[in-house]
């Protein structure tokens, strides 16, 4: 082993800043999450505030918002999950393109929206869907239909949220599958061709099985984030008129915690959310290991 003698400690100096960062900004908040079981008072601090046990959680379960929040959080996620195959289809389709310049152009264009910030994206959505000046409503009117007040109509919120996210990610999400597809042995395709397999058959019997482990891994990760939503965009697109279908657990935590200073209560709600996430991730990882022997760990 090298550095058996003197300078070995320097390696720990390399690790130290990161460890310090994780201890302070990640593990300390995990310890501080105990305010969820206390009645946090600014004057007494985290450690001096009295214990109240599960009071905050019980209050959350009984609040009139509870089922609405759970419902919105879950339905947005189910909606997103239903579009999970889009990136797979995009990757399989791009993979069939033979002209490499065109292929690269298509990839460059479809990856670009990934880099648009959530604020600009929300601005685009609001501009395009504006009831009187937005281009989407102009198109709707060309077809002779009535303009729709998308942003102030609660029923539209989830569709807008999920489809705009898909627009941003459909190309980027395909990269990882394309990388896996690049690893397919060309000889497999050659011999399948000789045996008379059509392109579609080769996609089904060669390409899809190759990327299946990648698909499963991403699906597990997706489930693990089941209760986590890109809530910054939710927050930006929220208004009193669509609140009924746009309030999700994380925006609720933000509002009740940071805007209304109910620190303990919202920490409890946030903890509830993180715990469910972790349970789902562990559960799906376990199931996947049993069923397909592919897993995160």
């Amino acid at each position, binding site marked *: *082993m*090298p550095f058996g003698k003197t*300078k*070995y400690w*320097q*390696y720990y*100096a*390399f*690790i130290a*800043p*990161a*460890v310090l*960062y*994780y201890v302070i*900004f*990640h*593990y*300390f*908040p*995990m310890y*501080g*999450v105990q*305010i969820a079981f206390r009645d946090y008072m600014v004057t007494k601090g985290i450690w001096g505030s009295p214990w109240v046990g599960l009071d905050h959680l019980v209050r959350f379960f009984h609040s009139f918002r509870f089922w609405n929040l759970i419902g919105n959080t879950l339905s947005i996620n189910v909606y997103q999950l239903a579009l999970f195959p889009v990136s797979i289809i995009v990757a399989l*389709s791009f993979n*069939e*393109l033979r002209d490499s310049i065109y292929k690269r152009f*298509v990839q*460059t264009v479809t*990856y*670009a929206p990934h*880099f*648009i*910030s959530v*604020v*600009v994206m929300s601005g*685009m959505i*609001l*501009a*395009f869907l*504006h009831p009187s000046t937005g*281009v989407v409503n102009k*198109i709707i009117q060309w077809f002779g239909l009535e303009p729709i007040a998308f*942003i102030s109509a609660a029923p539209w919120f989830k569709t807008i949220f999920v489809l705009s996210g898909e*627009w941003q990610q459909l*190309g980027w999400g395909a990269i*990882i599958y394309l*990388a896996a597809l690049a690893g397919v042995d060309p000889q497999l395709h050659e011999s399948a061709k000789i045996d008379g397999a*059509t392109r579609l058959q080769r996609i089904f019997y060669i390409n899809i099985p190759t990327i299946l*482990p990648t698909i499963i891994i991403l699906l597990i990760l997706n489930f693990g984030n089941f209760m986590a939503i890109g809530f910054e965009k939710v927050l*930006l697109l929220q*208004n009193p008129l669509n609140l009924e279908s746009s309030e999700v657990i*994380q925006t609720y*935590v*933000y509002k009740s915690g*940071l805007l209304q200073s109910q620190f303990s209560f*919202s920490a409890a709600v*946030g*903890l509830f959310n993180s715990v469910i*996430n972790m349970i789902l991730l*562990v559960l799906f990882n376990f199931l996947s290991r049993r069923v397909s022997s592919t897993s995160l760990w």
Partner: protein
Amino acid sequence: MKETASERGFVALNHLFVALMLIVVLYPLIYIVSASISDPAFVKTGQMWLWPMGLTMEGYELVLKNADIWLGYRNTIFYTLAGTAINLIVTLPCAYALSRPFIKGRGIVMAMIVFTMLFNGGLIPTFLLVKSLGMVNTVWAMLLPSAAAAWNIIVSRTFFQMNVPRELEEAAEMDGCSPIRIFIRIVVPLSMPIIAVMGLFYGVSHWNQFFNALIYLSDHQLFPLQLFLREILVESQMNSTMDSGSILEAAEQARIAEIIKYAVMIVSMLPLLIAYPFLQRFFLKGVMIGSLKG
């Protein structure tokens, strides 16, 4: 081999699908560019729907006259440069050390880092911590709470494992090089691709950072571009969408916002738009290395 009719049909359908995908992605982008240099009157009525009409630079002129935009731009450039520098200093040496198999305790450190991807204390405890550290309303709130990202450490570690062989290190050690010298003189020059990838990933996340600024900053002088963008793009539009009985000043603000909104989108994305085609391969590389360790 001759392709059958159904094969050709499949290829044609695939081309159609790809073309559709291109239109769906490109149309909004082209629309923004066109709208940003068109007369707002044509944009509002929908006469301008693809190519610019009534060419004008009024939007850009107003953006450039807007003091907030300049302030936000300056702040964002600072946060991006300083934040990315901190990210790299925390991420790369740590990832390198963790990639060396002879480091005792590296498994524990890895587990500690990976666990933060599964579970976190949540928004409120993190906020209270940052507050009690006295970072609220200082630049540190924009730099330190996001000093590293677990995923990026893992990706860099994978890169070092694959690209910096032990033998190289041992040879340097024979010559009396300390680990710090080895890292700076040998590892860093060998690892430019991953440094570029990490710099870009972190850089983009700082450039687009919005939520930390929202919760930690209330002093206008510290606002990054994204917070000013929020005022222009989201809040003013939300008001006009909601048709709240606006007073004159708000109406005037809304009018200006209407003119500048597309220009401001372009201006805010300008550095990325210019750099993106050249840097794309680095981004891809980052995703690829990440997928190896999936």
